[in-house]
């Protein structure tokens, strides 16, 4: 498969193309993609985790929390970006807005379910020890909810990076998607090379988040059992919550 060989050559040469001296380099576009994605993810987390966690703590608003996730899933990235382009023009702000719109729903849903599914006995015990609501949330529920919250963050990070590359299809300029959308200049070897970089970048970010998740998970927590219990909760919740 000689296309992959040429693609790797493209990557090794930092995205240089014969006869096109002034194209932006692969490294530059990768960093741009990361920058746009990180900003979008950060804003989404700041918005979504508090909302989802608080609702989960109160055990209220499940309809809202779960259906936000459902509706968010039904929004194609391309459509959100295209609508943004049509009515607001496609600058960095509009792209970030689209990223936030798409990343917030899964994070809210997961944060809600994560906190909501914490063993009530543990919460009661903490209350019994005299902790305030905020202390219970911060010192008991959140640490126990880390695995499922991180599942949401990791899903959101994939959405965000994916949407950043798709933004180039809608006319945004400043991500690895530029290469994929511009085969005329970069040739298929460039497009394939950029695709490999996009996949690699996303997997690397996911691995980094997995590392952080492991670091933040309280010791002594049996991860697989916790995740299984939480995902059962998610499954049951989705099964019961109709439109």
């Amino acid at each position, binding site marked *: 498969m000689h*296309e992959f060989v040429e693609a790797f050559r493209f990557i090794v040469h930092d995205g240089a193309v014969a006869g096109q001296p002034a194209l932006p380099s692969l490294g530059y576009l990768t960093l741009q993609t990361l920058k746009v994605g990180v900003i979008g993810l950060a804003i989404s987390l700041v918005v979504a985790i508090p909302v989802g966690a608080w609702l989960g703590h109160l055990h209220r608003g499940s309809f809202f929390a779960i259906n936000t996730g459902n509706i968010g899933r039904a929004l*194609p990235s391309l459509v959100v970006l295209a609508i943004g382009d049509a009515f607001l023009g496609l600058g960095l702000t509009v792209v970030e807005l689209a990223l936030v719109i798409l990343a917030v729903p899964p994070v809210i849903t997961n944060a809600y379910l994560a906190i909501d599914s914490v063993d009530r006995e543990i919460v009661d015990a903490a209350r019994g020890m005299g902790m305030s609501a905020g202390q219970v949330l911060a010192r008991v529920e959140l640490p126990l909810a880390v695995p499922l919250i991180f599942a949401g963050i990791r899903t959101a990070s994939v959405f965000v990076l994916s949407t950043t590359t798709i933004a180039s*299809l809608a006319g945004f300029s400043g991500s690895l998607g530029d290469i994929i959308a511009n085969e005329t200049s970069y040739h298929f070897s460039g497009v394939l090379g950029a695709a490999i970089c996009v996949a690699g970048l996303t997997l690397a970010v996911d691995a980094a988040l997995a590392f952080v998740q492991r670091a933040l998970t309280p010791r002594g927590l049996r991860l697989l059992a916790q995740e299984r219990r939480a995902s059962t909760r998610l499954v049951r919740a989705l099964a019961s919550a109709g439109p």
Partner: protein
Amino acid sequence: MTPAAIVPLGAAGPIIPNYGAGSSSCAVRNHFFCTDWFGHNWGPVLWPALRGHIVLTVVAVAIGFVIAMALALAAHRYRVLEQPTILVTTFLYTIPSLALFELLVAPVGANVYSAEIALVSYTLLILFRNILAGMREVPTEVLDAADGMGMTRTQSLLRVELPLALPAIVAGLRIAVVTTIALATIVYTIYDAGLGVPIHTALGEGPFKTELIAAGGLTILLALVADGLLVLVQRLLTPWARVRGG
């Protein structure tokens, strides 16, 4: 500049008709939504795109379901298979759609097969997880009862475990279907099908609001309708499993 390699024109050149006959001033001025353009172009542009989108989705989810079911049954039997399967399906799920499509074009070509392979890959994680979780939900007492009634393993599976796992399975199908409908909008980058095609055309024309809203709206509508249909299917198949609240 008279290139020698063309047939000499007649003195008058080509006759250029007046194309204005079929146009709509609303579309020319790119108003928010032009119903006349919509009506005119439903047949040639929007309906074929919608139909193609539905086919792409149904095929992808059907194949994904079959594969995920096989994997889940295997992992249910042999616990050790669960982690590797989760690992592989998560890996596939993590690759952004645009990248996965292009990666498949190299070996498979820019055709419907690449599109379907990618779409199927994205359904595997959620379907596998949900089918397995659903089967695991079945209380051991029920399994013991089935065993006590003399059912074989297969009979127990078909008559007891899978039906009881239906809520979880359908929940997974709902997510898979909605996700696939959203992802199929990108298929146009490698294969000419789906609602992404009119979206792409519209983007290149201004963007052309009517076509964008029509195609984008149809995609979202399709997802919501499909989701609703599956909820109905679930209610029909499992009237005993109506769990309120949550």
